């Protein structure tokens, strides 16, 4: 019972995170690239419910630039408007809308996580950046899983020299220093790519690196499944290789594939973040959890503006969630394979 509760909580949290990031344009108060040059490095605005005159609907105060930073202008309350009109955005690329979850009246700004050096809202960028980082992780994992399944199945099913040569290539990929390979691969590419181009490239490059380990696992499963009684029986009845694979063998691999995917996703999200952190991934002004952390390489920024660490916290939370999911899947696989 407790386990089911924990599982439910985990699934709920992951769903919430992914939905929030998917709906970034709706939840984020501002656009990712919207600069406010009068408010660089502004601290987060706290949401207040009460002031000297009593309780109110949630409101914020405005930051006024001061000699050495900012001070709060507590004379005026700026209530938070829910489901209000803001900057227009496109919903799933289908239609445009300007409905946003939170807004405040100008000249105040709703800054849940402060601003960066250009006055851009960190919270909005976190959500938009999550789209890039998570999508890269998910799509790259898809490529890896697809490649691994293909190669592992071919190696495991046909055996002999095909198996040996494919696994040898796999070993080569396993001992590649993936970090330097990523950097090197990026360096070979043209100087400038469109945002979509960079995105696609990142996905392909990251995805192609990690196929070897899942491929070996799948090969092992296919090898053992190939000689099961029911498979031999089906072959005896004249089933083609394709039918055998589709109907009997590949379903065996689904459990391990899911676990592997759950392990790979956070790894790939981190890979994208690393590349962007070093300036080799998505470039300004498109946010990604990696390039949002890039300014923190400077000592003064790291020490003085700690709210900019939000993407790091997001990365940790995402990774932990996926590892917990992988753990759950692993237990589920084990309990099923006993049968």
């Amino acid at each position, binding site marked *: 019972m407790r386990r089911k509760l924990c599982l439910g909580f985990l699934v709920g949290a992951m769903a919430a995170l992914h939905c929030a990031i998917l709906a970034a344009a709706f939840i984020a108060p501002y656009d990712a690239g919207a*600069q406010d*040059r009068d408010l*660089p490095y502004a601290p987060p605005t706290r949401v207040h419910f009460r002031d000297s005159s009593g309780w109110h609907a949630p409101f914020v105060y405005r930051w006024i630039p001061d000699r*050495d930073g900012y001070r709060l202008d507590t004379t005026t309350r700026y209530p938070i408007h829910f489901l209000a009109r803001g900057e227009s955005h496109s919903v799933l690329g289908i239609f445009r809308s300007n409905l946003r979850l939170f807004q405040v009246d100008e000249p105040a700004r709703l800054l849940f996580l402060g601003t960066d050096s250009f006055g851009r809202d960190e919270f909005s960028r976190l959500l938009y950046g999550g789209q890039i980082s998570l999508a890269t992780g998910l799509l790259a994992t898809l490529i890896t899983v697809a490649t691994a399944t293909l190669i592992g199945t071919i190696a495991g099913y046909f055996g002999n020299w095909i198996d040996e040569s494919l696994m040898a290539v796999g070993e080569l990929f396993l001992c590649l220093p993936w970090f330097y390979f990523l950097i090197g691969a990026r360096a070979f590419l043209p*100087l400038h790519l469109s945002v979509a181009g960079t995105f696609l490239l990142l996905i392909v490059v990251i995805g192609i690196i990690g196929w070897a380990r899942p491929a070996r696992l799948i090969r092992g499963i296919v090898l053992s499944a190939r000689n099961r009684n029911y498979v031999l029986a089906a072959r005896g009845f004249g089933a083609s290789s394709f039918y055998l694979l589709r109907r009997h063998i590949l379903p065996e691999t689904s459990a391990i594939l899911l676990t592997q995917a759950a392990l790979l996703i956070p790894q790939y999200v981190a890979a994208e973040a690393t590349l962007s952190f070093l300036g080799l991934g998505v470039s300004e002004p498109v946010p990604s959890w990696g390039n949002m952390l890039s300014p923190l390489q*400077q*000592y*003064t920024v790291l020490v003085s503006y700690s709210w900019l660490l939000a993407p790091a916290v997001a990365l940790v939370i995402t990774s932990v969630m996926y590892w917990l999911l992988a753990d759950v899947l692993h237990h589920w696989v084990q309990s099923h394979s006993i049968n």
Partner: protein
Amino acid sequence: MKSIAHLTLVVCLLAAWGWAAAPAPAAINSSEELQKEDGEVGQYGGRLVIGQRAEPKTLNPVTATDALSREVIGRCHADLISINRVSQKTEPALAESWKTSPDGRSFTLKLRKGIRFSDGQPFDADDVVFSFTVYLDEAVGSPQRDLLVIDGKPLVVAKLDEYTVRFTLPRPYAAAERLFDGLAMLPKHLLQKPYREGNFAQTWSLNTAPSDVAGLGPFRVKQYVAGQRIVLERNPHYWKVDRENHRLPYLDELDFLFVGGEDQQVMRFEAGETDMVSRLSSENYALLRKEQSRSGWQLSDLGPSLEYNFLLFNLNPIDAGKMNEIARKQAWFRDLKFRQAVSAAVDRDSIVRLVYGARGTALWGNVGPGNKLWMNQSIPHPQRSMEAARQLLKSAGFFWNDSGQLLDSSGKPVEFTIVTSSSNTQRMKMATLIQDDLSHLGIQVHVVPLDFRAMLDRVFQSFDYEAAIMGLGGGDPDPNPEMNVWLSNGATHLWHLNETQPATDWEREIDTLMQQQMVTLDYGKRKKLYDRVQQIIAENVPFVFLATPDVLVGAKSQIGNFHPAVLDHYTLWNADQLYLRAPARGVERAGIR
């Protein structure tokens, strides 16, 4: 036995103490012609620790190009005529006086008599002639050779007697005496042999034994520990004295620690492990200012530096087959109105505020307010105006489509790439700000950070770039060092390199004016010529000038005679006069938290 052991111990201790102590200044000999410095009188003793970004590469003054090597070498050697970093004017150094011939081509310098190198050997005209022979030798390949060659002809050095030298220039050269600043005089007795043997460029590497290195500067090399530090000790024969005839320098030792980048240098300074920090960024300066009242540091904002940052467009003629995208976009870049529109749209105030933390100045030309003697004050400083930018673009044949994108006259969307060095966070920020500014005009700009060397390769060799953000300048306020940038065949004429002849009329006019000012000796006339050059540059926008940072430095409170300057070397140019004050009783020592 016991007494022998005791004796040995005492002898060892004495030897260790003797080795560890810096040499005392040599007693003053009446035959020495010493230079008297007018500054505050300090006290002897102490050791100054300075952080460096990385190890210097060499101790050889002739071949050193990097700033780290020059920082160390500059303290060990002296020149004939120096530029005082605070007044920015020339003053006597090893040459105690000089006469110029009426035609401005010959300089006869009288050297100080009785001066000795740091190893005790005498200095005379032979060393000067030898030094210039080495600097001018093409086989040695000194980067300073270019400064001594005018119109393709090198200057000629002749020894007139033991302490008199004459320099003859191929033609009159304005401010020729500024040429001598920074040219170290070399000891012939140590370097003649390697020079004759042809391996001069390899001599005086970092690993050279300190006894094989000698110079006329305030300090000499004591010890080099690879990967950690290089320690300089007092030159006991230094030729300067203070007002009360005490031989300089006051300090016993200068210790250069290899600590790392600016962040590490600031951390060490905060911890009290280093005594000085130079060229801070505004963020680090603000960080140090917060603790200043407690620590008593001397923090100075010296005002705008002499360097200038700019956005540059690729106007080099390129092979349209190989780089057809860039060739197509050059049609926009070549249009003066396009460049003027970009300049009108750039938000320089935000660059100063957000990139330099308000410790900087906006620029509309290559000579900014830091250069009081040469700035053309009448060049317009137009405020940012999107309206003006739009008007300019409209009149150049650009137009906007329904979604606000800017299109050129043939209907193609206007977009280009700015490359900049990934290690320079300030220029990266400028690129992001400009990207946002131009997006309001409907121009899509992509920012591509590149490794510094890769960027230089594209700008200087392959021309495979569209626009770049770079910086130049900073050495000397005098216009002559800027010749490389503004002469049409100059080595840093970045927007259009390797011109065999001027590509436009205005470049031709700049060529003529710069050549003229080079040989005009009167300051007033030179100023008029250089003013006109600045005006032409402002009108034709080969660079979109952006901003310049202030020079920000810091030092511990105990350092006396600390007079930082806007010119290199910002904090150590008067290392011979720096001294450590004993801390007053009751004052918290800096750095102890």
